[in-house]
């Protein structure tokens, strides 16, 4: 990391919504700037009425099969299982798929309980409750993960989660997976 930009990054971390980005995930400023730009776009998605409405609805009434779903069961479900496909075929899932780009390769929406509301592709975990990527947004902050390598494609990617706000109250989170190669 370039030392001379550290004061600037610190200042930005204090002033910006993503000020909670852990230091271990510190990126090259140029890459971070791209990530920040994408985060702003993801925040805009999180504020879309389609997303907010879907989260509020699921928060209000959680489907029984959602409540009964366990992580083990979720892992055995095929990507083409109707239960799984329902998350990418509902309005919020369709909305997310419509917003996919070269940089934004995957996205998901969780309700206040950490259960899935919608996603573009089946996630590994059914619930992210207890995970920082869920807990931080639910506290109104933005979570940014480190640069990781995708097991399937081998591409470098960065996950971020932003809160879904009802007014100023977090009601869920929207996670996105960004392709590092497309951000540069």
């Amino acid at each position, binding site marked *: 990391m370039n030392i001379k930009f550290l004061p600037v990054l610190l200042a930005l971390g204090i002033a910006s919504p993503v000020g909670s980005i852990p230091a271990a995930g510190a990126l090259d400023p140029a890459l971070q700037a791209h990530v920040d730009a994408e985060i702003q776009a993801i925040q805009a998605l999180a504020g879309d009425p389609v997303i907010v409405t879907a989260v509020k609805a699921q928060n209000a009434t959680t489907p029984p099969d959602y409540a009964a779903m366990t992580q083990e069961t979720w*892992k055995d479900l*095929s*990507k*083409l299982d109707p239960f799984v496909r329902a998350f990418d075929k509902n309005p919020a899932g369709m909305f997310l798929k419509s917003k996919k780009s070269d940089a934004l*390769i995957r996205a998901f929406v969780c309700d206040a309980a950490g259960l899935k509301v919608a996603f*573009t592709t089946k996630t590994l975990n059914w619930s992210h409750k207890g995970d920082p990527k869920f807990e931080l947004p639910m506290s109104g902050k933005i979570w940014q993960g480190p640069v990781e390598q995708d*097991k*399937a*494609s081998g591409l470098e990617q960065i996950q971020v989660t932003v809160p879904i706000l009802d007014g100023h109250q977090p009601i869920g989170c929207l996670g996105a997976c960004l392709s590092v190669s497309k951000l540069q």
Partner: protein
Amino acid sequence: MTLRTTISIPRQLMFLVGVASATTVVAAALYYFASNRMSKDSAAMTTTTVARLNDSYDLLQRISADMNHLQELMRLEDPDAIEKAVQDLEASRQQSLQLLAGSGDAGSALRTKFDALVVEEKLVVDQFLKGRNALAYEQFLHGVTPQSGVVLEEVRHNHQAIQSAVQQGLAAEQSRIESRLRWQASALGLAVVGLLFTGWRLKNHITAALLAIASELRKMSESSAGSAEQLLAASQNLAEGANAQAASLEQTSASLEELASITKRNAENAQKANDLAKQARDAADKGMADMEGMSTAMLAIKVSSDDVAKIIKTIDEIAFQTNILALNAAVEAARAGAAGMGFAVVAEEVRHLAQRSAHAAKETAAKIEHAIGNTTQGVAISSQVAQSLREIVVRARQVNELAAEVAGASREQTQGITQINAAVGQVDRVTQNNAASAEESAAAAGELNGQADGMRRAVDDLMRLVGDQETSPAGHDEPADAPVRSPGQPSSPQPSVTADAATGIINWNDERMSTGVQTVDQQHQELIRLINELHLACVQGTVTEKLMEQLAFLGKYATSHFSHEEQVMDRHRCPVAGKNHEAHAKFLADYQELVATARTTGASSRLALQLKKMLANWLTAHICRIDTQLRNCAGAGANGARQRDEEPLTF
């Protein structure tokens, strides 16, 4: 009579050609059907083989494609794309299974191995769809890839089996085709041999028939040539007779025209006599009327004389009574004496007057008696004259009637002679036409003779064509343009004029006509051209329009040519110069006579024929016989260089 002789040669040829054609068609049809069958068998085998090979290749492609699809599937994230890829993979598997189902028992092993491959692929897909990508890749590498190698090896094995089966099938088909072609070639060879034998037999038969026909035709052509010669001679005789008949008719026509003229004059004179007789009868009638008037007048004079005589008698009686009275007065005066002296003188004078009156009355009576006598005699004479005049009138009327009858008869005679003259003119025209027809018949006979000669040569050609090695009889090899006698030419063979057999046109014959002097020959050629023009005009029916013009040309030609030719002969001291002069003089005399006839009677085809005959005779009898002797005098051969010491003349 055999069957071959009853069938015509064209039919036999057609039969042979038909059999050959049928054989060819049958052979071609057999070859076609055999080729077609072989082609179909080959096509079916090829189709089956290609289909099996295609299925094999298709299966290979599908297995390779399924491997690719499987790998692509494992890289997909979008659920829709994954779902579609899974469906496509399943569809591809179904098609592969259909291909395997079509391979029959030979593909059962391949089917088993392919099913095992499908199981491995499903395991990979299942792991992938559950998100266990690492396991899916591991399954792909250790399960699908080896099994696909097994399947591909089995496919290659099947492919080799197909190729081996095809090679065996091709070898069997090749053997079958060769056997069939041997049979067909043998049958076709037998048919060709049969056709050749039949053609050889037919050729012998046709040759024999044609030889017989050609021999018959040769006899007929020789007979036809003889007939044509006779016809030519007869036509020439007929032409000469027609010409002579035409000349006689011309004279008859002239006599009839003269007779018609005389008869016409007689009719006119008879008409004049009739008119004069009529006038005489009218004059007699008028004299008769005058005579009757005169007789009436004479009778009136006689009556008047009788009346005067009566008056004179009365006067005489008065004079007598007056004399008596004078005598009585004298007596009385005498009785009266002196007193009556004067009275007696008067009475005497009265008596003298009475006596003079009586005397005058007597003289007058005598004169009147004499006049009455003369009148009576005049009346009698006038009666006689009237009677004579009546007889004259009767005779004049008879003369008038006879003159009218003579005039009518003369008119009828004139009409009759006119009709006779017209009939003679018609006969003259018919005779001239006959003469022209005879000329044409002579030309046609000459042409027929040429055709007969041509037919003879054709027969010889036919004989040679059919293989007759005998040469044609001597005299049959005359050239086509052999000299023929022109119409009206004497029948002596030499010298003759060369004329075209078909058209009758006379051609210049250098050997027989040349004088050795170019200018003279050129002028003689001009004469031949004139004769040919006359001939063509006769044939075309335009001779009367051109005759006067040709006569005028002939006059100029004769004058110039004769003078020139005589000068040449004189210059070369030719011994026939004198004879040539005489012949020229006679020709000019004949020409003048012909021109005079033409001017009198007008141009006619008869005159044209006469002129043509005269010129043809001149060409044959004078030019070919006399003028040609000039080449002996001029020292030039017939075929040698011509003398050019004279300038050519123009007409």
